[in-house]
Structures are given as structure tokens and as C-alpha cells.
């Protein structure tokens, strides 16, 4: 088991290195291959209406004249030991972990990114609890009462949940519960450490909105999984032992049906931690998703690179956790 986890860890680190190479290539190698000059590339980091001198200075600060592998190495080294961009008075210091320096905001990328992580984490985990509880419960009931009114009704709602975009359900919920009936007025992020009650209250609408989409998905997955497992031979064996139906369903049926769902859940959560873009945008929550949108809109390349690295980090970690969890859940995978 330990070697299994170690092997996966090494693979995860390797994967992250590959991801960083790809991201680096997209921003620094591909433009060059496409005919972009160092000067042109540097222009994009300087802001609007740059002077020639400013661009040349930026070119030097970014080290664009160095060979690409040297630039990549510098990029990696900066993450560990930090980096000084430029020389003399114009020099700026980016402390480790330095995921680039946003010249537009005149700030290193990492602290800006880190400050938006709690928002995204609060949003993702809260919604995850809701959608797991709701989705799985609805899925199990639907499967056991297949073809009944409950099943049809919940599957219709689930279809709506999967089909309706976040920016629709989110805006409707805001219009109804924040504006018309101000049960949750003034939705904005309050840190958990500052005021837990307000933190939870202000996140209820985003949680429900996000969870609605995923709960719908998970209800359908659970239903399909339960229908399949409840037809398995070992369920018949469990009944033949004389177990009460509740034990048969929960301990034997759900246990087997949940394994693939755990896998998907890990990946979904990892993806969400990289930023729930639509939800954060709809509710103006300054998480990683909104950070990404603003970075893209401002064409702030270091910020975009940083957030992509962070998001891929979350996904790789989620993958790792899922692999390990799967081995714990399904003994057939272990050895």
C-alpha cells in the first residue's frame, strides 16, 4: 500500500513538471514559433501605449533573450527561491513561491492568488457537502422506487439541474432570495475565521446554485449505479443470508455503487478548486475563478500562467487522492 502511494506521488510530481512545461511553452515558446519577436512578446507585459524603452527594459527583465530552456529553468527556480526582475531602480523582487510577477498590477502573482483561495475553497467544499448528500440520497431513493412518481419527478428535476446554466439559476436565486425576499441580502464573502455565521449565510445561495448542478449529475449517476448493483448476484446472496433490506441496500448495494462516484467526486472537486468560474462571476465572489476571468480580460499573462499552474496542481492532487481512495475502497485494485 505504501509503495503504491509512493509510486503515485512520484507520478504526480512528474505530471506537474510536464504540466508546467506545457504551460510555459504556450506562453513563451509557441508565440516565438508563430513568428513573434521577443520585442513583440515583451510588449504584452508592459501595459497600454508602451514606450520603446519600456518594452526593451521589460524584454531584459523577463530574460526573453536567453535560450528557452534557460528561461524555463529560471521560471522553475523562481518558484523555489524567488526572483528579481530587471536591474537597478526598476528592479522588482518576487519572493518565493514566485509564480511570476504581474507588471500590470505591480504585484507578485502568488499573494494575489492565495488571497482568493479561501473563497473558492469555501464555495467548493460547502457545495460539495450539499450535492453529495442531496444527489446520493435522491439517486438511491429513485433507484429503489424505479418508475414511481418520486423517481420520475426527481429525474425531471435532475434533468433541469443538468441543463440549466449556473448564470441562470444563480441570477434567478439572487433575484428571488436576495432582492424580492431578502432572506440572503448582500451576498459577499466574509472569511470563516471572522464571522462563521455570516460566512455560511452569505454562501448559501452560491452553494445551493452550484450544488444544484452537481446534485443533479450525482443523482443520475447514483441511480444508475444502484440499479446496476442491486441486480448483482451478491445482493441476492445478502438477501439469502436473511439480512434486513436496509443492510442489503446500504452495506452491500450502496457500498459498491459509491465507488465510481467517489472517483468522479474527487475529480470534480479538484476541478472546482481551480475556480468555480461561473458561480463566482454570478455572485461576484473573488475566488480563483473570478481571478482567472480578470487575468484573461486584462491579458495579464503571468497571472493566467500562475492560476493555470495552481488549478492543475489541484487536479493532480485530486487525481492522486482518488487513486489512493479507490484502492482503499476496492480491494481488487490494491496489489
Amino acid at each position: 500500500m505504501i509503495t503504491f502511494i509512493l509510486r503515485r506521488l512520484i507520478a504526480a510530481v512528474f505530471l506537474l513538471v510536464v504540466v508546467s512545461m506545457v504551460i510555459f511553452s504556450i506562453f513563451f515558446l509557441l508565440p516565438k514559433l508563430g513568428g513573434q519577436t521577443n520585442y513583440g512578446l515583451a510588449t504584452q507585459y508592459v501595459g497600454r501605449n508602451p514606450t520603446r524603452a519600456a518594452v526593451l527594459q521589460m524584454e531584459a527583465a523577463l530574460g526573453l533573450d536567453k535560450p528557452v530552456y534557460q528561461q524555463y529553468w529560471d521560471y522553475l527556480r523562481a518558484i523555489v527561491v524567488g526572483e528579481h526582475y530587471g536591474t537597478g531602480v526598476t528592479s522588482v523582487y518576487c519572493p518565493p513561491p514566485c509564480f511570476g510577477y504581474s507588471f500590470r498590477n505591480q504585484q507578485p502573482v502568488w499573494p494575489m492568488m492565495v488571497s482568493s483561495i479561501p473563497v473558492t475553497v469555501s464555495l467548493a467544499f460547502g457545495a460539495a457537502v450539499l450535492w453529495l448528500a442531496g444527489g446520493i440520497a435522491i439517486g438511491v431513493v429513485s433507484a429503489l422506487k424505479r418508475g414511481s412518481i418520486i423517481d420520475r419527478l426527481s429525474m425531471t428535476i435532475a434533468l433541469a439541474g443538468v441543463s440549466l446554466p449556473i448564470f441562470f439559476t444563480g441570477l434567478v436565486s439572487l433575484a428571488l432570495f436576495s432582492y424580492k425576499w431578502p432572506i440572503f441580502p448582500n451576498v459577499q464573502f466574509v472569511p470563516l475565521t471572522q464571522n462563521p455565521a455570516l460566512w455560511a449565510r452569505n454562501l448559501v445561495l452560491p452553494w445551493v446554485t452550484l450544488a444544484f448542478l452537481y446534485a443533479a449529475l450525482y443523482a443520475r449517476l447514483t441511480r444508475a449505479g444502484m440499479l446496476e448493483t442491486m441486480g448483482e448476484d451478491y445482493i441476492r446472496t445478502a438477501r439469502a443470508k436473511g439480512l434486513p433490506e436496509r443492510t442489503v441496500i446500504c452495506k452491500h448495494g450502496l457500498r459498491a455503487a459509491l465507488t465510481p462516484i467517489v472517483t468522479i467526486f474527487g475529480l470534480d472537486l479538484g476541478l472546482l478548486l481551480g475556480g468555480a468560474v461561473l458561480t463566482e462571476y454570478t455572485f461576484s465572489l473573488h475566488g480563483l475563478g473570478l481571478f482567472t476571468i480578470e487575468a484573461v480580460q486584462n491579458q495579464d499573462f503571468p497571472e493566467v500562467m500562475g492560476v493555470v499552474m495552481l488549478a492543475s496542481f489541484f487536479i493532480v492532487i485530486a487525481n492522486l487522492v482518488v487513486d489512493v481512495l479507490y484502492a482503499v475502497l476496492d480491494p481488487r485494485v490494491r496489489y
Partner: protein
Amino acid sequence: MAPLLEVRDLRIHFPTDDGLVKSVDGVSFSLERGRTLGIVGESGSGKSVTSLGIMGLHHGKAQITGEIRLDGEELAHADQARVRELRGAKMAMIFQDPLSSLHPYYRVGDQIVEAYRIHHPQATRKQARQRAIDMLDRVGIPQPAVRAEDYPHQFSGGMRQRVMIAMALCNDPELLIADEPTTALDVTVQAQILDLISELQAEFGSAVIIITHDLGVVAELADDILVMYAGRLAEYGPGADIFGQPGHPYTWGLLASMPRLDRERQTRLVPIPGTPPSLIQVPPGCPFHPRCRYTALTGGRCQTEVPVLRAAVTRGHATACHLTAAQTARERAALSAGQVPAGAGEPDAREPVLPGGVET
């Protein structure tokens, strides 16, 4: 003393969109303690449904009429909770495919412990665990204490079936139903498992029902044999009679399609022509008549009149066939002499249409 299990006019029907599936249609038999009953038939003959019916394991949709008496207690219409109490305790079952019948995510020891504790709530975990290990040991699993910690996929097919048997017998059931217990196993392992079942039967004194499509399986084990066709009884009697003086053309067909070493190579295997009938539209008259070679001998009764089970020459042996005792004896003699059926030659060309038999 009353028999342990008594089934009377059992009918199990399943309503489906295509019509009513009459999986079991009027089956009666009884079984004494310590004896073995073999239920034989092709796929879809209703043998598995019968056993699931006894265990109360059919779906909620099934319509059940008739009587199932276990030790005098009526089960067919009993409270579900009461049947659940008996299930696994007084009657237990093992299934065809031990790999899919054991839960892949739980250790085999824990699965046996679960079966034991549900019927012995006062037993401690430790006692239950000891019981599980004892049972694994009893069914011939080496190092039972170690193997109890393993998962089903770590066992071979034969060992898995031994685990199933250990699980079924851990509560000392009075009735053990084995549904095709050797079908999914290697031929070399089949005999071991059958030996184990009969050995344990002698030790535990339980009654055993063995369900199979393979007459060879029941030949040695079964005291009585019940041949089922299209949800009904075709023939019922002591094993010696079924093999020595079979009275139903379907049984003859089953025996002829069995591989045997004492016959010439060319004539060794004789398949029964046609396929089992749809259980939604069972042929009128005798359900076997579209595949039977002897229908010409009865003057049309086979096509119109449902044959009732009536006593054959020997005691306790009954056959549901319109042939007279004399005709049966003559045709059987002709068959065993290796002759072509004297009756009418080929069976009706009309084959049953509609969906095939329902296998559960």
C-alpha cells in the same frame, strides 16, 4: 413425521409488458430431512424460480399461489419479516457463480461473520469470527484463519464455492438449496464440491435440493429427482427409477443428450430438437408436444389435453405423459436398443415463436 419441506401446487407468475410469464405453474413435491432432491431441467424450465420462491427471494412483482411448508410453517403467504428470519437460518442457498455471488469489497471471513451474527445477535464478534474460521476449515480451506482475511477475488473458483457453502451452513440450516452449484466450476473441481455437499449433508443432517441442468450431477447425489419442463413437472420419482425406467419422453431426451462412455461415438449425443417454449404462451396440451416424437401415438391428446402427473409402474414414481404404460415400456425398450423411435419419427415442425424462456 411430516416432511421438512412440502410444496403444493406452487405457481409463480410474473406480470410483464409482454404478458404473464408463468415461470412455475403447479409444482408439488416434498422432501424429508436428510434426503436430497434433484431438480432437473433446461434453462427456463422454472427450476431456479422454484427455489427462489421457497427462499422468498423473488421480486415484489411475482404472483405466488399454492403452499410452501417448511417444517409445517406456511411460507408462500407468510409475513416477509418472518421469511427473512428463516432465510439463512433454517434454509440457506448457494448459487451458481461464486465469484459474483460473494461481495467483492468484503473479506470472506467478514461475510460469513455477517451471516452468522444476523441470526445469532447474542454472539460476540469473537465467537462469530471463530465460527467463520471453523466453517472455512470444515469445508476444506487450508489455513482458514489466514484465508478469512482474504477477499473473494483471491480465491480460486472451487475455493470460492467452498466459502459459499461455509457461509450457507454457518447457521446450521435444515434445508440447503444449491442452485447449479458446479456449473461455473472446472470439471475437475465439480466432483469435489458435490462430494463436499453430500459429506456435509450427512454431518449436518440437512435436507438438500440440488438444481441442475446436468443429470450427471444428480445421478449420484439425489434420492429423488424432479424433472421440470416449462414450469411444470414432467416426471418425479426416486433417482433409481428416473435413470432406470424413465417414463417421460423429455427425460429420455435429457438422458440421451448426456455424454456417455458406454455408447458408440456416433450415437453418443442426441440433442432434443427445438427450444424450450415461451413461458408467456405455453403450448396448449402437453407443453412438450412440439418437441416430442411420440405425439402420433396418443390420437391428438398431446395437443389438446394437459397431462396430469400420474403414477407409473413403481411406487413414488409419477409421469406427466399421455402415453400408456405399455407404450412407454415399448418405446423405452426400443430407445435403449438404439432404435429410431417407432412412433412417428420427426416431431412437429412448429417451433414456439415469441420471446424465449425466462431465466432468472
